Each structure stands twice: as C-alpha cells, then as structure tokens.
C-alpha cells in the first residue's frame, strides 16, 4: 500500500522550521540595529534600508558607493559605514522634517498621489490597480484579501494590476533571515494563492488585465508569485529564492533514497509547473531549489540563453554551481549574501537572464516604465484598505483567541454554586467556544500554525468536543 498525501504533507511541513541551506543560519549582510527612535528629529538625516531598518542621525561623509553615518540606537551613539547598495532611500535633513518618518517597506507609495489627474484633459486614461503585499507570507499575504483586491480591480475595470511584493522573511524572533535559509514546502501554501492569477483572472475577466509583479522580497513560498507572471520588475535590493532546501529535505530522513527522490521529484514538478504557467524556463526552478544543479547563462545576439553546466566561455556567467568540494558556499559568502549553491535571484541576475524587465526603486519609476505615469489612472482606492483590513483583522483575531482562551479558563461558578450558577457558568463557556469557532472559521487560512500551537488554541473539532462535554455535564446536572 502506498500513501502520499503530498499536499497535506507539504502544508504540515511548511509550518515547520526554516532550514538553513547547508546547515548554516546567519544574519544578513545588511546591519540590523535595534531601533528606539521612530521619527526624525529636526536636522537629522534618515536612511531607509531595504530590509526595513530606518536609521536617524547625521551623514558624516559620502562616496559613490558608501555612506559614513553617525547615529544613535537605544541611547547608544555609533558611527559606521553603510554600502549604498543596501540603502533604499536617503532622506537628508532638509528633506526630512520632523514627523515625516515612514516605514521603509513602501517609501514612495505613501507620498505619491494615489489618484491620477482628472480626465478632462482629453487624454484617454488607462486604469491601473496597485496591490501592495507586505507582511508574512500565508498570513498577511493570503488568498482571501488578494481575491478581494482582484475582484475590486475588476469592478474598477483595471487594465493593469501591479503587485508590489515585499513578503517578510524573518525568523521567529523577528530577525531578517539571510539568503541561505529556505522553506521549499511553503510552495504548497502558495498554491492556495497563485491560481487566483493563473486560473481565476483568465476565467473571470472578459479582457484579462496585464499583471505586473514588482519584487522587493519573494523568499520561500512567496517566490512562486513572480514565477506565475511574465511582467516582473525587481527593486535594487530585491531577492527571490529561499527554496534551496529541497536537496536537504530528506537528507536525514529514514527509508530508501529512491523514495526521497520520488518526494523531491513531485515537489519539483509542482514548482516547475507554475514557472511554465508563467512563461518561464522550468530550469530556473531547479536552480532555485537543488544544490547539485548547475546552471549558467550565455548570450546569443544579446539574448540570454540558459544552459546546464559550468560556464563554457569567458563571457558566460555561472548562476549556480553544484555546491560540491570547493564550490561549497563558505561562511564568508553566506554572511555577505554571495552564495551560489542554489540560486537566489537579485536585481542584477534577474535582469541578466531577462527574468526581470528592469530594476525599479520607486512607484513613479515603475509607472513611467509601464507608460502609466501620464496616461494612467489609479483606480486602487480600496486596495490598501482591503489588505490592511485583513492584516488588522487577523491580528485582532489572534488577540481575541488568546483572550477568549484565558476567559474560558477563568470562568468560575459563582457563589452559592447552585444549579443556576453552574448553568450560567456553562453558558459562558459555550458562548466563548462559539466565538472561538467563529474566529477560526473566518480567519483560519491566515492563522500562523506557530501561533495556534504556541498558544494552545484548540482546533474547531476539539472545540466541538469541548462543547459536547459541557452539554453533557449540563444534562447530568440536577437542581
């Protein structure tokens, strides 16, 4: 007898710990400093890093590639040098008056006008819809709000949908994870989401819109989202990968190697399929996922051509080596985000192989690139609301679930402890159970398994059993 509930296994495993590719988990090359300050004070410069860190202080000196910066973190003064490549935006004192501080995730989006100029200038405007996806993949970034936003885009008759993707890639302590951490099994969570783009949009739209993904960060399951579209742009500090643990997933598993190969093959087949659906070379998935896989790129008439193996000529470029012997990524490479045992696409490599159509750092730049800056009309008024409502609702649901669980434990039979009081207490518990079931049904898809497990939130089935237990107690009770 054979059993292979692949999808279910994948979902369960996706909830597991992230695996450090090669067994080493290190901090990203970008310094992450503890922040105490939340907004710029008068005369302060502000640095916004691609990883979300915002630093306030004074630019001491500056070269073409680096900035020497003096700042303060949690009361401690420091002076250090940052590479400009890691900085998303520099707000100088005169540009950054007090109180203007903003999150780094979407610096341009907040300041730029969300509505195109009026239509009375005689120009036919092309409606576009902007969806900003940030936060946790599978929690904040989930099928329900995305489906709602796409539905709204359809109602607004959008001709272009722009998805700004900045999925967080952090450990359980909230620390940014490096390139060499991976969670391939998250693709099974992504398979709840990507059919919205691949299947539902073509099905539901008479004239399907052009869908553009602007990648800021797409690691793990989030990497599947750019893979299913053709029009992709990267930000300067973007990265896409986090799938490189497939070769290691069964390395220490019991059983036969041929079964491990089968399980890897099936997973790879899933991911390759989505890349094909997006019009991409499926070998890209092999390079993202498999350590022994070697992929290089050559150029014919200026066009990149992928091939398996090490570079054949000086003009060719290695994308990912076999990770064996001296090719094994060193700790130094890992720390600096320069690994190539598996592929992590960045702005340069993505552009090099024409996976990305260009490197874009601001909303305005992207609109210009898409010819929407002058003739586009932003119709995404509700988008931000839909996404933030979901995230807030999710957060609120988690808070409520924790509180309800505490409330449940604190329900007491009040004096004099008679039948009436016992009945009242059971009634309170039943109401709490009903509320918890309601929350689990409404928000279940986005609730992090870590959260549910960590706080001991019962499943709906367990709550049903608890409900029946209380009802039986009530039936047994006598005045």
């Amino acid at each position, binding site marked *: 007898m054979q*059993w292979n509930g692949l999808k279910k296994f994948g979902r369960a495993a996706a909830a597991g710990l992230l695996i450090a590719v090669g067994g080493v988990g290190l901090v990203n090359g970008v310094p992450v400093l503890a922040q105490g300050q939340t907004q710029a004070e008068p005369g302060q410069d502000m640095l916004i890093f691609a990883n979300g860190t915002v630093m306030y202080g004074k630019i001491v000196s500056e070269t073409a590639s680096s900035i020497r910066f003096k700042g303060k973190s949690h009361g401690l003064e420091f002076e250090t040098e940052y590479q400009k490549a890691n900085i998303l935006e520099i707000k100088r004192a005169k540009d950054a008056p007090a109180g203007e501080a903003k999150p780094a995730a979407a610096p341009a989006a907040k300041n730029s006008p969300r509505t195109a100029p009026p239509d009375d200038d005689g120009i036919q405007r092309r409606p576009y819809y902007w969806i900003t996806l940030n936060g946790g993949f599978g929690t904040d970034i989930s099928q329900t709000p995305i489906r709602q936003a796409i539905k709204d885009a359809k109602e607004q008759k959008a001709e272009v949908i722009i998805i700004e993707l900045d999925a967080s890639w952090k450990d359980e302590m909230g620390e940014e994870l490096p390139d060499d951490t991976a969670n391939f099994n998250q693709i099974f969570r992504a398979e709840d989401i990507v059919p919205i783009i691949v299947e539902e949009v073509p099905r539901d739209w008479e004239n399907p819109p052009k869908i553009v993904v602007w990648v800021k960060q797409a690691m793990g399951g989030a990497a599947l989202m750019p893979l299913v579209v053709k029009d992709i742009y990267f930000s300067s500090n973007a990265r896409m990968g986090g799938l490189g643990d497939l070769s290691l997933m069964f390395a220490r598993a019991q059983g036969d190697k041929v079964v491990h190969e089968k399980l890897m093959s*099936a997973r790879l*087949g899933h991911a390759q399929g989505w890349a094909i*659906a997006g019009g991409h070379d499926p070998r890209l998935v092999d390079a993202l996922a498999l350590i022994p896989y070697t992929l290089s790129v050559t150029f014919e008439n200026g066009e990149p051509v992928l091939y398996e193996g090490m570079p054949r000529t000086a003009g060719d470029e290695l994308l990912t080596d076999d990770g064996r012997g001296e090719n094994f990524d060193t700790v130094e490479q890992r720390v600096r985000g320069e690994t190539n045992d598996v592929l992590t696409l960045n702005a340069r490599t993505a552009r090099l192989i024409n996976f990305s159509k260009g490197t874009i750092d601001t909303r305005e730049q992207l609109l210009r690139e898409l010819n929407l800056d002058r003739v586009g009309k932003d119709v995404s008024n509700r988008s931000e609301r839909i996404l933030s409502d979901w995230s807030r609702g999710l957060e609120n649901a988690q808070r409520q679930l924790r509180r309800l669980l505490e409330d449940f434990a604190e329900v007491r039979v009040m004096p004099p402890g008679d039948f009436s009081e016992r009945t009242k207490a059971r009634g309170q518990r039943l109401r709490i159970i009903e509320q918890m079931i309601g929350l689990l049904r409404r928000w279940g898809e986005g609730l992090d398994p870590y959260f549910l497990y960590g706080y001991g939130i019962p499943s709906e*089935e367990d709550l049903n059993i608890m409900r029946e237990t209380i009802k*039986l107690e009530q039936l047994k009770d006598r005045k």
Partner: protein
Amino acid sequence: MFTTKTKNPAVRGLRVLAACLVLAVVGGLADTASAADVLKLKDGRTLEGEIIREVDGYIWLKYKLGGLEQETMFTPSEIVSVERGAESAAANTEPVQKVDEQAAKPARPGVPRGAVLTMEEMVGQYMTAYALQQARPMLEEELGSEGERIVVLRVKSGGGYTLEVQKLLDEIHFNYKPRFHTVGWIDSAISAAAMTSHILEEIYFTPQGNYGACTEFMGASYIASKGRSLEERLHQMEKVSALSGYDYRLMRSMQIDDPLSVTVTPDGRVDYYQDEESGDILVNRKGKILTLNAVTAEKIRFSRGTAATLPELTKAMGYKEIDWIGKDEPGVLWPVTKAERWTQQYRQKTAEDERRLGEYITNYQQQVAAATQVPRDQRGAFVNRARASLSRIVSMTRNNPAFLYFTFNMPTREDFDEWIEDQEQFLRDLMR
C-alpha cells in the same frame, strides 16, 4: 500488501471502543435499514428499502434482493414515483426532479457533447472507483445517447493508496472508455494518480501540470516496495502501458530510478532508451525519479497538448466546437454537470468527515460514558445523543465506503454493519 495501522489516533480509539464495549445480540440497524421507502420504476419493478442519498432527482436506494443487501443508484428517467417512509424523511435532501433542460436537449448534428469530471485529492479516499461508478450513469443521462460523447477526467491529486489503482483502472478501461471518448486533463497527477491516468490514451496537460513520481512506498517510513511486490507493480504498469499505447519505459522511470532518453523522429515516431545518452532528449537522469512537466510531456509526445482553459482544450483535441454540458458556476473553470456536482459533494463530505472523525468518536465515547453514569430513567437524552453520533459515523461510510477499509479497517460493509449493530444493541441495553 496492506498495513493494518492507521494514522488517525481517533480511529484507533474507535477500535479500542469497539473492543471494549459490550457486544451482544445481533439486530438493530437492520430495523432502520428496512424503513419503507418505495421506488416504482419504469421497468415495472417496485423496490422497497431505504433512500440513502438524493441529488438532483438521482436516488440511491439500499434494498434487499434475494436476501442480499445492495445499494443501487437510479436516474430520474428510470423512476416513476417515490413513496417515502416516515423515518427516511430526514435523509431526503431534494425532491425527485426531471433531468435539466440542457441535458435533455438533443445533440447538435456533428457537434460532440462533452463533460468535465474532476478526480481530486487522495487516491483511495477521495479519488475512487466508487465515485466514478456513481458518476457514470449520470454522465450517460446528461450526455445523451446520440453522437460523440466526451468525458474529460480532470486530475489533480498528490497520490494515495495503490490498492485503489487497479479498481480505478478497471472502471476507466472497462466502463468509461467503451461508453465515452475519455481523455485526461492533467493538472497534477502524482504517484497513484499518474498510475491511474496512464490508462488514458489521450492526455492533455494544463501549463502547470505535472505527472509522475510513482515510486511505491510504505507510509511515513519511506520504505520502497521491493522484491516481488515491486515487480508486481512494475508489471501492472507494463500492462497498463501496453493497453494505452505508451512505452513501458516511461512509467518505469517514474517508478524506479532508471534513466530515460527519447528521440522524436521527423515522422513523429518516439523512440525510448533506458539510458541518458542514446536519445536526443534527456528525460530522466540515472538515480532520479521522473515527474513530467507540461513542456517535456508535449515534447516527447506523451501529452497531446497543453491547455489552460476549456476552449484551449477543445482546440487541442482537434475540435472546432464541443457542446460542454452543465451549468456555469462561479469559481469553476468549466460547466458543472450533475455528475460533477455529485462528485464535488462526495469529496466535500468526505473531507468534513475525515476532519471530524475524531470528534464523532470522542463524542460518542463521552455520551456513552455519561449514559452509564446516570440512573436508568435519565439515560434517554444521553443515549439519543450517542445515537446521533453513531449515525454520523454510519453516514460517513455511506457517502464514502472507502472509510470502511482505509479508516475503520473493516474489509466489508457487513463487518461494519455488525459493529454498528452491536453498538445499537448496547445502546438499547442501556435503556432497559
């Protein structure tokens, strides 16, 4: 080969429960089963039994014939009238209706009629021969008797029990293919799902489609089949490949780590080689297990084409038009036939029952325990609740008989009925 272990602790609980509870006089369930629903058929027969399911006028009747109990589905066109027994009223979901207008419409001359039927989720539990058997008469009814009739089996499954594969193969080969032009549309066919689909001569992929990874193994131990059992499985798929016209080496590379290369000759012939070098196209490396994607499947002519939508599939199949029967429903890529709706409901109930099985069993246990803890004259309410839980367990096996074997480890319906009868008797005894 079959393991008696179950992965569901709740089921183990059921077995413990079954062993612990008092087993006494036989009887009980038969009383319920013999509740008098009467079906008058156009062929003159009058059948008396229990209506156990109704969908859009289709009726599943459990009745005895020559002393043997059986379940049969009747289409609306076979039924003259239904008289319902009082006890079955709760099970009745919808009145008997006529076949919908579209299905009754005569076929347009020269235009084939087609239906999409989904085969999804775990093989043996959701993707079953039973589901295909139940859907078949509905498809016959809906597709009519005139002209070409096409059934597209849309497959999306990560595999499951190989024990079910032969049943599925037989149902498709002996019952679907002779009646319908049966084709596969592969979204994902992994393991047992690919082995099942391999009986179809005509296969199309979705762009994201995948197919393969058929290595047989035992549960979570990841131990591959070896020796005779492996040879039997390889031989089984060699026969299937021969029936459907595929080179046996293709499936072999999906089952074991044999290499495979292929040459497609200019005249369209496909030559297979069980090595990496001889063919022009390297399909599988030595030591790897093959899963095809849409690109490779089409390149080596295994897939007849790649289609994301029904119009694309129509075109890939070489038709200008096909009358796809069924109703357009939001969220579904193709018109939904009655057969497909039944199949979806079957899977939905299976999923709910699978998820809630532990709840059914735990509740039954605590209801029985509560009944035993109170004086006899107060037991009624507890016993009634226990009966409701027991009926949920019965209901899940009626919707999907696969639970009998794969979940309750009871090889036949009779074994299960006997167990239920024992429980019923036990509950009756509690009331005495």
